[in-house]
């Protein structure tokens, strides 16, 4: 077994106070979009351990072939890792430009292997031991730390990660319709809630409705004339960019459909299609942010990885360590970062999964600290009890 540690991970140390900042402070001009892949996506087929014979042995039907001339082979990132070929035109160009990085063996130490328990756990961002506050999500604490009112959840419901003391609005951009309630009716309805616990939600709901209408009005009016080709997540991501460019600096969106127990495919097939759609959406987000992309960071994560071995149905079951993606116009990308191990039978966690070597609270704490110039006390507020680790992302 070859234990291998990349140069960058040597700097996995608590952040020194007053470390040089790459980003201006107070960095509310910095924009952060967190993309949650719900269902535990198969990270080992996204970032493929191409130097591991074991990966190929244990995935006879679903492995992505080693880099080669064939267009259905992994795209080489370095000697050990390759990228899924479905991301050739979307994420690979960002990686080559130093605007995308991957962190394998990332995740939480939560071991329930339950989607819901682990998603909650990650969204809360609190220590696993001791009692947790189920009304306090990590992005909500980030918003209150930054004192910014620019957080927005681009979802139908307000997810746990955005719940907490700061009132964060939500709006789903999958489909946007013109409202039928006029201004007077809206005002009268809000007055009914003046003494209600729901008053903040109602007031903010009307405000956000009007803002979205203003921002997306051009798109909605021109929709028929210059046929917008974007659909699904790509269209949603473009709309998110339109709003984040001008208005919101902390965003959240979730994407489902990753729980691939059966027939997930390899270089082509079901999961490849999901990667393709996601990659296209993210690349289009980056483009649509225009100049603001330089100050924007996108983090893509999931609750856990999947079993390294394929199961009896050409799929994979719930695992542990996963791979985080970090994208941004100003990040130090083009690298696979963080603590790493060779993928072999001996390095599997519980003889089935990737281990977690890069605990998410440490990694995100380190990232937030760099991009927002936060000090240790502020990071402690967002990730209580965590030791922020600078793995060289930004």
């Amino acid at each position, binding site marked *: 077994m070859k234990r291998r540690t990349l140069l960058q991970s040597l700097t996995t140390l608590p952040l020194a106070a007053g470390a040089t900042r790459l980003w201006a402070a107070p960095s509310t001009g910095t924009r952060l979009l967190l993309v949650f892949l*719900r*269902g535990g996506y198969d990270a080992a087929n996204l970032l493929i351990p191409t130097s591991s014979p074991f990966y190929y042995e244990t995935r006879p039907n679903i492995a992505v072939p080693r880099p080669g001339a064939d267009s259905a082979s992994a795209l080489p990132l370095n000697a050990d890792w390759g990228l899924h070929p479905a991301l050739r035109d979307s994420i690979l160009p960002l990686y080559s430009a130093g605007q995308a990085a991957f962190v394998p063996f990332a995740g939480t130490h939560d*071991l*329930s*292997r*339950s*989607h*819901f*328990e682990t998603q909650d756990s990650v969204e809360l961002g609190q220590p696993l031991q001791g009692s947790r506050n189920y*009304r306090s999500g990590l992005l909500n604490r980030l918003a209150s730390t930054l004192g910014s009112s620019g957080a927005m*959840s681009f979802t*139908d*419901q*307000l997810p746990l990660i955005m*719940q907490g003391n700061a009132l964060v*609005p*939500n*709006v*789903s951009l999958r489909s946007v319709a013109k*409202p*039928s*309630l006029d201004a007077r*009716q*809206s005002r*009268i*309805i809000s*007055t*009914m*809630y*003046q*003494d*209600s616990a*729901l008053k903040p*939600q*109602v007031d*903010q*709901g*009307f405000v*956000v*409705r009007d803002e979205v209408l203003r921002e997306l009005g051009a798109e909605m009016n021109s929709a028929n004339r210059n046929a917008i080709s974007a659909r699904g997540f790509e269209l949603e991501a473009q709309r998110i960019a339109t709003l984040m460019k001008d208005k919101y600096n902390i965003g959240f969106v979730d994407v*489902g*459909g990753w*729980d691939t*127990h*059966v027939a997930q495919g390899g270089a082509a097939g079901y999961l490849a299609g999901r990667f393709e759609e996601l990659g296209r959406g993210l690349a289009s987000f980056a483009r649509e942010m225009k100049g603001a992309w330089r100050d924007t960071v996108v983090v893509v994560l999931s609750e856990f990885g999947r079993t390294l071995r394929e*199961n*009896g*149905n050409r*799929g994979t*079951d*719930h695992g542990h360590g996963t791979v985080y993606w970090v994208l941004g116009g100003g990040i130090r990308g083009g690298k696979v970062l963080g603590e790493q191990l060779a993928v072999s039978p001996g390095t599997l966690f*519980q003889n089935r999964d990737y281990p977690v070597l890069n605990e998410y609270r440490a990694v995100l704490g380190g990232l937030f600290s760099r991009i927002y110039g936060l000090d240790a006390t502020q990071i402690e507020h967002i990730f209580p009890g965590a030791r922020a680790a600078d793995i060289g992302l930004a």
Partner: protein
Amino acid sequence: MKRRSPVELLFVLLLLLAGLLAGCAAPTARPDAPALTLQTGDTADVLNRVTWGVTPALLKQVEAAGLVRYLEQQLHPDAAPLPATVQEQINAMTISRRSLEELQHDMERMRKDADAKPSDDEKKSARQAYQQELTRLAREAASRSLLRALYSPNQLREQLTWFWMNHFNVYQGKNNLRAMVGDYEERAIRPHALGKFRDLLAATTQHPAMLRYLDNDRNALHRQNENYARELLELHTLGVNGGYSQRDAQELARVLTGVGVNLGMATPRLRPELQDRYVRHGLFEFNPARHDQGSKQLLGQTVRASGLAELTEVLDRLSRHGATAHFISGKLAVFFVSDEPAPALVERMAQTFLQSDGDIAATLRSMFSSAEFAQSLGGKFKDPVHYLVSAVRLAYDDRPITNVAPMLNWLTRLGEPLYGHQTPDGYSMLRAAWSSPAQMVTRFEVAKTLASGNTALFKADGLPEQRPASLQQANPAYFAAWQRNASAATREALKQAGSVPEWAAFMLSSPEMMHR
């Protein structure tokens, strides 16, 4: 005064008669069960919780018959009929006329015929027709479910049917589940909604919708798939903190090997010594050749190899486990009492659950009798299904709707379509999940559409649209009283309404309507 059709009058008379007869035979059906005692006198408040929403007619009926008697009837539903026009709508559905086996056969033939079409264009349109038919079948199931929620006299059973469908959630978007969800609700869930939890659980483990949704139809010896096993422990019985381990999930997956679905006519050829253990009813199949024949260890006890009987033994253990009693009681209390039910209440319910061998009606009776239940009335935030069904019940109490389609679309906009939750955890029952800024505004939009005397709800195929009376005109006395009892802020807003539909839009948007 409100006009009543002869059918409705007959129906009310029958109910009253049933009430009288039940009175003679003591309505507490079980001699060993403690009597139901209510710690509140507000009939409308109790009805708003126990039913899909109070209506003027129901309030009148229950005030006449007595609330406790009504609740006992709700806990032990009889074959009370739906209004005739509603029953006709249901009878006309394909899912009412074809069994799941027949539907499966029809759909399979349609699919094969499509694949056999000579040209690509014909193939494409035949496949599209196949997909549309699947979607139509699922919409029938959802329509039937909503019609019952709106109009069944057995309101509690229909609420529990929705609750258990959500607890044992399946997603219609997977495979051909759209053809199965109706049967799943009709035969696995609804008959057991107020019965024994053990029977309910067992019915879900043998229904093809569940077995396909959680991939157990693919779970076999040497090709193990632990998806269903894990959710069965985590979401259906013990709960995530119920004390099981990763090993238990794997062992239960072994127990579940061979428990699957056979969509064809043929039965597998088996070695003689396995033939006795083969089980088939309908589309359900236990194939011993796919089953792991070794003994298993679950929750510290051995499960001796015995084919499908292993699952029977395991379900006995799981349904009588203390963790299950607490998990199910807690979930019922969240649904019926509060987002954070008092631990003492959950404990009492769990004790009833254990003592009654998982009797759901008995568990609910101990909940209805509690002080916690009485104190919580009016304080539970409605999720979208509760909001919409209660609004339609109240707004159009005097006339059953003839077209459910607009309601299905509104539920999608509100984020809670039937059979539409992708993951097995089901929809949240907590206020925080449904009261975000965007969700509140969408509710108001729906309220306005609903209040406009939405003619689409009364559109029937081939008939001209009929405009219903708006809610205020239908029952002025009830709504005048409603307005008097509303908060000062709500009253003030209602005064500013410039038209009858606008009055209704404000009323359906009020904080009072958002809670039950």
